């Protein structure tokens, strides 16, 4: 591919993260031939440079210059290599494949392969409804938190995940980075987000009846993630004197910058335009909180779309963290309530989305009930040392809900303009709420 073609190809992909920026250059910074025989498979690390001189790096898998992932069957080779644990040379480094004993061998033959079409920032391929391979697209130096967390939870027997089956990684001149992970695929599961919307009217009680369990699973996940005091990467920590200040500052700056960048002439953002200061005032009120519990590794991007309802239980997926945040930030320990707030925001999202996507408003009190059920289950199971109690918990949850909705707003503005009205509605609602202490 010429540089121009490479730019055109990468920038046109859904997983390309920086659609609003001006790309000036693209180059392959390393490549590895993973399979020589036809159909060939080549790994490329592509550096995309922007007009200001900064850059991002992406993973491409090609077959004679074409995108190999457009035909998912070609990617079987990656699973074979993970199973055999090979190491292959790249021009400037090595590609290493690693199996997890006992799980990688699932579904020996690999007959059927299909791509998951809802992926935003990566590419996922399902083999025989038994294994799923996630190819990370945007690459950053360091271990991907998804590999780290899945391995940790798998080793500790946490059952409500899709077990880790293997991974592949690159280390070489440009960086050391996780390229992809292989997990057990959970067939027949019902995506939590779709479940919520489908059941909104027809089957409200069935969905509501599962949310206490979702809270329990979440609480247990946090308890397990905060259970290893001797592993520095996971040991729960008492927050430092400035951690709440840092949190406030970070969210406050995000509010300021997203309000600064609200596009003119977009009617969907009209309800919040000019109200940035009000939002910041709310933040200042909510961050007047003493105890914040412990900071731990957590899911990082927790919402209904990251859950599956399957065999009468919940499975938690996708431990990558929010794709727009840098890797060190996604690996940072923070209050587990950040995940809880993510799920609460997701209920609000579903309630609003029901009107936007399905043309029907949610039943009265739907969201309040969902929150109540979920929080009940969570409070019962989570290790109480990890979270503050009473009104401190409510306030901290409100802070994280605000953080999440500001993140959503930026994400939707950049990726799904039709959805902008959802976080806008969420922010308006928070502003209209009474502040109760």
């Amino acid at each position, binding site marked *: 591919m010429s540089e121009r073609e490479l730019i055109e190809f990468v920038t046109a992909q859904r997983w390309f993260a920086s659609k609003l920026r001006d790309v000036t250059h693209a180059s392959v910074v390393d490549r590895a031939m993973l399979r020589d025989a036809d159909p060939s498979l080549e790994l490329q690390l592509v550096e995309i440079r922007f007009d200001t*001189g900064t850059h991002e790096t992406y993973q491409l898998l090609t077959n004679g210059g074409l995108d190999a992932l457009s035909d998912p069957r070609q990617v079987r080779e990656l699973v074979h290599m993970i199973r055999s644990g090979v190491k292959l040379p790249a021009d400037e480094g090595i590609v290493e494949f690693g199996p997890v004993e006992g799980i990688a061998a699932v579904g020996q033959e690999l007959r059927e392969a299909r791509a998951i079409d809802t992926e935003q920032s990566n590419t996922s391929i399902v083999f025989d409804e038994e294994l799923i391979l996630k190819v990370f697209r945007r690459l950053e130096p*360091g271990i991907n938190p998804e590999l780290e967390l899945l391995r940790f939870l798998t080793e500790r027997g946490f059952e409500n995940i899709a077990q880790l089956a293997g991974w592949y990684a690159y280390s070489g001149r440009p960086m050391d980075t996780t390229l992809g992970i292989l997990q057990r695929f959970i067939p027949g599961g019902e995506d939590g987000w779709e479940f919520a919307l489908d059941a909104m009217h027809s089957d409200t009680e069935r969905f509501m009846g599962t949310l206490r369990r979702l809270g329990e699973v979440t609480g247990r996940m946090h308890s397990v993630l905060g259970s290893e005091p001797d592993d520095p990467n996971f040991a729960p920590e008492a927050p*430092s004197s400035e951690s709440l*200040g*840092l949190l406030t*500052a970070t969210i406050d*700056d995000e509010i300021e910058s997203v309000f600064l960048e609200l596009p003119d002439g977009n009617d969907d953002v009209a309800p919040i335009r000019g109200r940035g200061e009000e939002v910041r005032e709310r933040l200042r009120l909510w*961050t007047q909180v003493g105890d914040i519990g412990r900071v731990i590794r957590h899911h990082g991007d927790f919402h209904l779309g990251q859950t599956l309802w399957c065999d009468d239980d919940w499975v938690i997926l996708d431990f990558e963290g929010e794709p727009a945040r840098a890797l*060190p930030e996604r690996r940072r320990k923070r209050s587990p309530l950040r995940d809880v707030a993510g799920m609460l925001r997701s209920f609000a999202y579903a309630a609003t989305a029901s009107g936007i996507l399905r043309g029907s408003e949610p039943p009265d009190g739907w969201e309040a009930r969902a929150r109540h059920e979920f929080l009940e289950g969570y409070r019962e199971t989570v290790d109480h040392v990890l979270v503050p109690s009473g009104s401190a918990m409510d306030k901290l949850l409100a802070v994280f809900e605000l953080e999440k909705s500001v993140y959503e707003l930026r994400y939707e503005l950049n990726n799904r303009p039709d959805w902008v009205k959802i976080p806008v509605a969420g922010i308006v609602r928070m502003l209209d709420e009474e502040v109760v202490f």
Partner: protein
Amino acid sequence: MSEPGHWFEREPLWFKTAVFYEIHLRGFYDGNDDGSGDFRGLTDKLDYLQEIGIDCLWLLPSYPSPLRDGGYDIADFFAIHPDYGTIDDFKFFIDQAHQRGLRVISDLVMNHTSSDHPWFQASRAEPDGPYGDWYVWGDDDQRWSEARIIFIDTEPSNWTWDPVRGQYYWHRFFSHQPDLNYDNPEVQEQMLNVLRFWLDLGLDGFRLDAVPYLFERDGTNGENLPETHAFLKRVRAEVDARYQDRVLLAEANQWPGDVVQYFGDGDECHMAFHFPVMPRMFMGVRREDALPIIEILEQTPPIPDSAQWGLFLRNHDELTLEMVTDEERDYLYEEYAKDPRMKLNLGIRRRLAPLLDNGRAEIELMHAMLFSLPGSPVLYYGDEIGMGDNVFLGDRDGVRTPMQWTGDRNGGFSRADFAQLYLPPLMDPVYGYQAVNVEAQLRQPNSLLRWLRRLIALRKQHPVFGLGTYEALRPDNPRIFAHVRTYEDDIVLCVHNLARSAQAVELDLSRYEGLIPVEMFGQTPFPRIGELTYLLTLGPRGFFWFQLKKEGSV
């Protein structure tokens, strides 16, 4: 070979776009309640440093030392001072820093050791022993009289009589800091071992203290000698051969023409501090005149593409006035050191905020200029919140008081009893920890800390500040310091008003005709650049940074 690169993109020139932060470990955070900062404490504060946008920490010396010169008197090059922790604490700290995308360099004093160092003790006791020739001994104190005395307030001579050996020993700094003898190949080899030891532990490089003075030669002032450069080139070759993405930062308090020699042809030090620019920024702001700044940058020779200046406003030493004329020095003393206690050697021992009368506009303006100049900015701990100093403490301790984290006891620096603290924290009504602390400033959207954090973030979005060309504009209004930085497709125009009053300026931007200046903090487009001069008005001590963009891309 230990590789810190695991958490970084491999980038040999990372230091060119980095923001550095200088830490006095003893004063940063006390992790074991003994009244003195340590590696465990610093590790606890890494999230803070990462969140304000720091890329690289520079640690003052943390080796075993009798601490008669703040640790620059090293008594063992292969260990950590027990007050600061252990080698394991250090390794854990480095790993935790790297995981957060933070690199770490450490001070290394190659020129001399503490007189307590076993090498010196052996050298004085056994002139014919294995260490007899490791230091610079002489039978009289007259040789090399051309070499100036640096610590003029305390040292009468560069020679001191040693009654044990019955000879004089040579020292360019304090008499308790004998100079190592670099004419001895064993000394050179051992110093390379020191470098390897710390690089193997994952350290990302060194700030090489006092490098101009390694060798002595008759008929010279003993500074910047060819032999010194040859040894530094050997150090660089050793580092390049065995390690990736490390940096050597030279401290050579010399004129730019001499300092650039320390870059070699890109085969000596990666970075060197630009000392003379800093006093001229203070002078420029006081005199409301951009000329001193423009001139010193004009006198600064070009440097290799792979090299970088380290720029700073203040550091752990006195604000050094060695690199100014006598007249300029008198002026700066007059303006910035009204109390004679504030003077030290040829400099002023004060922090940034008190030097600028705690003027917020002045502090912002100085940072804006610092961040806009060609080089990598080096911040000094505590200056990001506008900490003050204590002129009643001896030597340079007045600018090394405990970091002020909260308004609580001991400023949140330590849980030890007040009496146990290595130095008292500031408690005065203006700069004391109850008025000035990290926690409060994080919560105040308009605080200095929050502003600086935004400035750092903005700088990091634009590699032009670290990598771009520099071109001064010379507008008719002498109170305006304006220049253009260019890198790839990024063109940035920086305009600073040094005056206490509002100013108008007409800039000749004809070369950029048709482009739109977009103010970088607020993303506000300004009128298109036309054929005529571009008129700007700036508030007192105000500044603008603009990205010059093509019409269609705004």
